[in-house]
Each structure stands twice: as structure tokens, then as C-alpha cells.
């Protein structure tokens, strides 16, 4: 959780003391909700794949690796949202596109070649096991991050 103070402190050095120059925040307003959902997906995907990889990796190596990859992507986007700033916005945007491509690819793949997936991934069937949030989330995030903030530095 980045409070405005925290976001201002990191990186802007000495001048932060006089006039707190903040990176433009990406998690104000609707961004808070977005951050929360991404946070939940990080915990979900990372802990799920961690348990599966450590206990039964051989059962469905491809599925579990893809879940772990999904967790990494979610983690990076969450970090970017918290960090804020124009660079983070662009990085998050790229990752959201990757996320969307990932969901669509893996979703189609799991439907087309069920034999390759003895167990589900986070992105199986376009994220049906997660109420289709994996497909809706990148679209929402792309919309939210679509343009530079007016107060960009």
C-alpha cells in the first residue's frame, strides 16, 4: 500500500522535503479497485502455482508453469500500479497487453488441446474458474492506463 507520502519520497531525493513532488499516481479513484483485484490475482496465482509446483509438478508441468507465469505478470503490473509514474504506466500497459494475449492464447489452447492440460491453469478456458476476471481485468486496466496522466512529470 503506497500512501501518497511514500510515493513521493522514493526517487525524488532532496527536493521532496520542500515541495513533495510525486510521481503521478496510478491508484487513485478507480485505480484502487483495480489494484485490489490485481493484488488478489497475484496472491491467488502465485500461491496456487507455488503449492502445485512444489507438491505435484509432474502431474501437469505445462499448466503449473503457465500459472506461475501468470502470477509473475500480475505481480509486475501490481508493482507498477503502486509505484506510479509515466514509465510504470507504460510498463504496465505493455504487460496488460501481454496478459490479454496470454489469456486468449492459453484459453484457446486449453480448449483446443485438452490432453496437454491434465489440470487447470489460472488462464484455462479464458479464466472461467476465476469468474472470467483474467479476461476482464486486462481490458479494464488497458482502459484505465490508456493515456498519460495530465500531471505527469
Amino acid at each position, binding site marked *: 500500500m503506497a*500512501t501518497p507520502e511514500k510515493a513521493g519520497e522514493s526517487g525524488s531525493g532532496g527536493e521532496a522535503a520542500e515541495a513533495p513532488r510525486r510521481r503521478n499516481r496510478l*491508484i487513485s*479513484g478507480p485505480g*484502487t*479497485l483495480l489494484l485490489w*483485484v490485481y493484488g488478489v490475482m497475484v496472491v491467488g496465482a502465485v500461491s496456487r502455482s507455488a503449492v502445485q509446483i512444489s507438491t505435484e509438478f509432474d502431474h501437469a508441468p505445462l499448466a503449473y508453469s503457465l500459472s506461475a507465469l501468470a502470477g509473475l505478470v500480475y505481480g509486475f503490473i501490481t508493482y507498477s500500479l503502486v509505484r506510479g509514474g509515466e514509465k510504470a504506466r507504460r510498463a504496465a500497459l505493455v504487460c496488460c497487453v501481454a496478459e490479454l494475449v496470454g489469456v486468449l492464447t492459453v484459453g484457446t489452447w486449453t480448449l483446443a488441446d485438452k490432453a496437454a492440460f491434465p489440470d487447470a491453469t489460472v488462464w484455462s478456458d479464458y479464466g472461467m474458474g476465476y469468474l472470467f476476471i483474467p479476461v476482464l481485468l486486462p481490458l479494464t486496466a488497458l482502459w484505465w492506463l490508456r493515456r498519460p496522466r495530465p500531471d505527469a512529470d
Partner: protein
Amino acid sequence: MLDALTIAISAAALALAAWCGFAAYRDQPTKDWHFIGMAVVTLLTVVQLIVGIVRLAQGQEADQGTTIFVSYLLGAFACVPVSGFLSLAERTRWGSATVAAGGVVLAVLEVRLYDIWGG
């Protein structure tokens, strides 16, 4: 006991979600009463965590394994407080919406917990 608690928490979480969702709809931030509601729900999840661990200590086992059971218990416990903290930082309707989402997530976790324990 555990099953009754799981069902009670699901209901309470959905009620909290509806309540905070209504606040978001009316363009209001979370207020003291909402935080009391979150505290009640969190208290229930603490009780659930304790009961769950006592059950495991007594030698009973969760259908889908101890690790998964305990991580879901911890996740259920953390869910509402974390969304509450986010709403403290975001004093607009979107803070309320976040807590509402937190309630929905908790309800989903409880459904999963029910299966994991083997209700």
C-alpha cells in the same frame, strides 16, 4: 462448527459487500460504521482461523490437504482488513467499491474453504 462458521462468514461477507456497494453507489466513502462492519467480519474470520487450527491439532484432516486449508484460512483472514486499509487511503466512492470487492472475494474464499475442508 466449522461449516456453520463458513456459512455465517459467507453471508456476513456478502452483506458487507452489499452495504459498501450501496455506499459506493451513493458516492460515499467508507465511514465508521462500515469499519465496524469490517471488524465484525474480520473477527469471524479470526475465530474461523482458530477453530480450523484447533481441528487440525486434534488430528482431523482437510480433504484437500493441510497446506491449502491453512493458506485459505489465512487468505480469508487478511482479505477484508487489506481492502479496508485501501479504503482508508482512498476516501471516495472507490474506496467503498474496493471493500465491496473484498467482501465478494471473501465469500468466494469461504465457498472454496467449504470444499477444501470437505463439508
